[in-house]
């Protein structure tokens, strides 16, 4: 029997090792696993068992976070297949994509000058979200049906750009709300 700490995250959750997954299954199994190992189950146990339980619960939390997130799940699958994507890695020259990124960034920088900045930001956020979803389904195709790994790597890198954009949108939204209300 292999230790659950060394199993890969898909094995741990008894899920097929592929990009597309059933989120309801993932959530339900996460809860089942935590019910079994969580430190609250071992609050009155020995120090040793409490340590083990914390390790396991930590591991399961991490696995869940990775599997739940479209970008992290994609990176993780690539890593399992021997094609780890580095943090600092940049996408190959794709002028169209870079142009699109520049346009989004300019739009973001100009939000404060809009008549209704929050509404404008909301529109922009939706556009970014839609693009991200498209990349996500392309990644599913590339990872679950494709033969090559390069297209998947490129898609992951593109998603990283959008993830950073989304974070900046959220920060700006927080700033705007704090100023307005």
């Amino acid at each position: 029997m292999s230790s659950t700490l060394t199993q890969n995250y898909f094995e741990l959750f008894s899920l097929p090792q592929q990009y597309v997954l059933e989120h309801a299954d993932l959530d339900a199994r996460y809860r089942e696993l935590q019910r079994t190992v969580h430190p609250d189950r071992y609050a009155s146990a020995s120090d040793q068992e409490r340590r083990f339980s914390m390790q396991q619960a930590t591991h399961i939390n991490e696995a869940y976070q990775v599997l739940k997130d479209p970008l992290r799940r994609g990176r993780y699958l690539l890593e399992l297949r021997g094609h780890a994507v580095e943090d600092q890695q940049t996408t190959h020259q794709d002028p169209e994509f870079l142009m699109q990124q520049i346009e989004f960034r300019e739009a973001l920088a100009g939000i404060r000058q809009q008549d209704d900045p929050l509404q404008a930001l909301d529109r922009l956020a939706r556009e970014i979200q839609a693009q991200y979803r498209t990349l996500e389904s392309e990644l599913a195709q590339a990872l679950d049906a494709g033969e090559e790994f390069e297209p998947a790597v490129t898609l992951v890198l593109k998603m990283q750009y959008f993830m950073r954009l989304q974070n900046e949108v959220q920060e700006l939204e927080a700033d705007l709300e704090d100023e307005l209300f």
Partner: protein
Amino acid sequence: MALLQISEPGEATAPHQHRLAAGIDLGTTNSLVAGVRSGVADTLPDSEGHHLLPSVVRYLATGEHQVGTAAMQQAASDPLNTVISVKRFMGRGVDDVKSLGSVLPYEFVAGESGMPLIRTAAGDRSPVQVSADILDELRQRAEQTLGGELAGVVITVPAYFDDAQRQATKDAGRLAGLNVLRLLNEPTAAAVAYGLDSGADGIIAVYDLGGGTFDISILRLNQGVFEVMATAGDTALGGDDMDHVIATWVMEQAGLGDDPDHGLQRRLLLNACAAKEALTDSEQVDIVVEIEDGRKWQGTLTRQRMDELIEPLLRKTLGPCRRALRDADLDAADIREVIMVGGSTRVLKVRTMVGEFFGREPLVDIDPDKVVAAGAAIQADVLAGNKPEDAMLLLDVIPLSLGVETMGGLTEKIIPRNTTIPVSRAQEFTTYKDGQTAMALHVVQGERELVDDCRSLARFELRDIPPMTAGAARIRVTYQVDADGLLSVTAEEQTSGVKAHIEVKPSYGLSDNEIEGMLRDSMDHAEDDMKVRRLREQQVEADRVLEALQAAMQQDADSLLGSEERSAIERAAGELAASRKGSDYRAIKAAIEKLESVSTTYVDRRMNANIQKVMAGHAVDEFK
């Protein structure tokens, strides 16, 4: 069979024995203790029938102290020795406390480790000691009411408490001689108290405005699992602040200067608080303040005027509400219920404002003062092992990002806020000078980019790194946050294996030795008492280990242990049971350690087997 010898008849090791447990709400203004009796969680009253214990301790020149109502009655006449709202100082440094200084009458001095001490007639007292005195009072109440020694307690903390504040709270529990099973976030506790009643799944928001702290938590309930999705708040905002704006208004009306003496200040605050409370039921209230020499000021405060005065404060709570929703990736419309917690939510203006924000009438069914303690008692009962297998489970988050200082005084986040705990994350760093043999690590908590704007949690050094060229060393820094939300940090140089590890003790916290010293000081026959205490602690731990082992082995020893492994474990267990009967705490401790080391593989195998068992139902056929 050898196993049967482990448990002595009539000893505390008998399985299924009900363990006494309590939930404690250690509040800024009032504290409560609750227990589960006949399946119902309820707060426990004192001998006079009062449930709320004012969080007030008065220190007398004789060295004795009073807690609660008796202390509060002297607050105005003896302001310097009567400590109120001590929760505001928990885990804070002297500078933080001084920034609250204008409204506080106490004289603070810096303790050895930078912890602020309050100068009283009975000597200098740290906030941790003052809190321990309150906890001790509640412990006595619980033990009298429940009829026995407490096996463990759950103490609640504001969800937005940082690591230093949590650590200080846990230290106070230890100082009061309590076995702290868990620190539980107050909004989560409230959700538990409500959740088990209604039993319906969905997303709920808990708005918790206490005497000195504000929290908002968004939780998802699913078949007994309470998953916190996001939390936000302000640890220095609460009902006290409403009292202050009302008191300031009274001073303006009465033409008083900015600098009232301590006694008058205290009277003004008590009057303000009473007026605020009265305005929940009345449209207006008369205020009479004794100024000096029998001179009095009299005036009227209407609810409308008070609402105007406190509105800016209440607006400040909506920022965190918006942020929590954003972090949870939800809109106000996604929230199924809003639960109101904390005495300050009795103010009607709070309810209308929260109702408008979330677009629904907030729930106020359970007494907002008692709901947190009741929830904590339910959790304590579960953790003490009194509940059947499929009891509820709480999955909480860290409220504030944990990071490390990098070049130029910037913060690099290692664990972002609202990550589910327990959690562990690692980051690699390297040396920036040739031949560098040490590296300083500064652990911080907060959302800001500059280290100076975050809370400094600890500083430590990794030494003895073998000299290498700049950038060649690989220093892996690992942050581990446990289920109480407490952080420990390990640093290891990967190529050489040089290690450093610290339990994060806040820069102005107490060391284990200091706590032990304080415990010793608090006992009359220090030496003997410590021995008795240590022995008792080891006996309890021995019982726990043996009981857990026995239950485990009955379940699965046959399938998971070879005969040699089994007899080794049984031998070690027998030795522990034998030393448990003696009075040498060191021998018991050694026997526990031996048994643990012999059974390591077994414990590991069991946990893995349990996980495999849960997942077994899902295997194979679901692989497409």
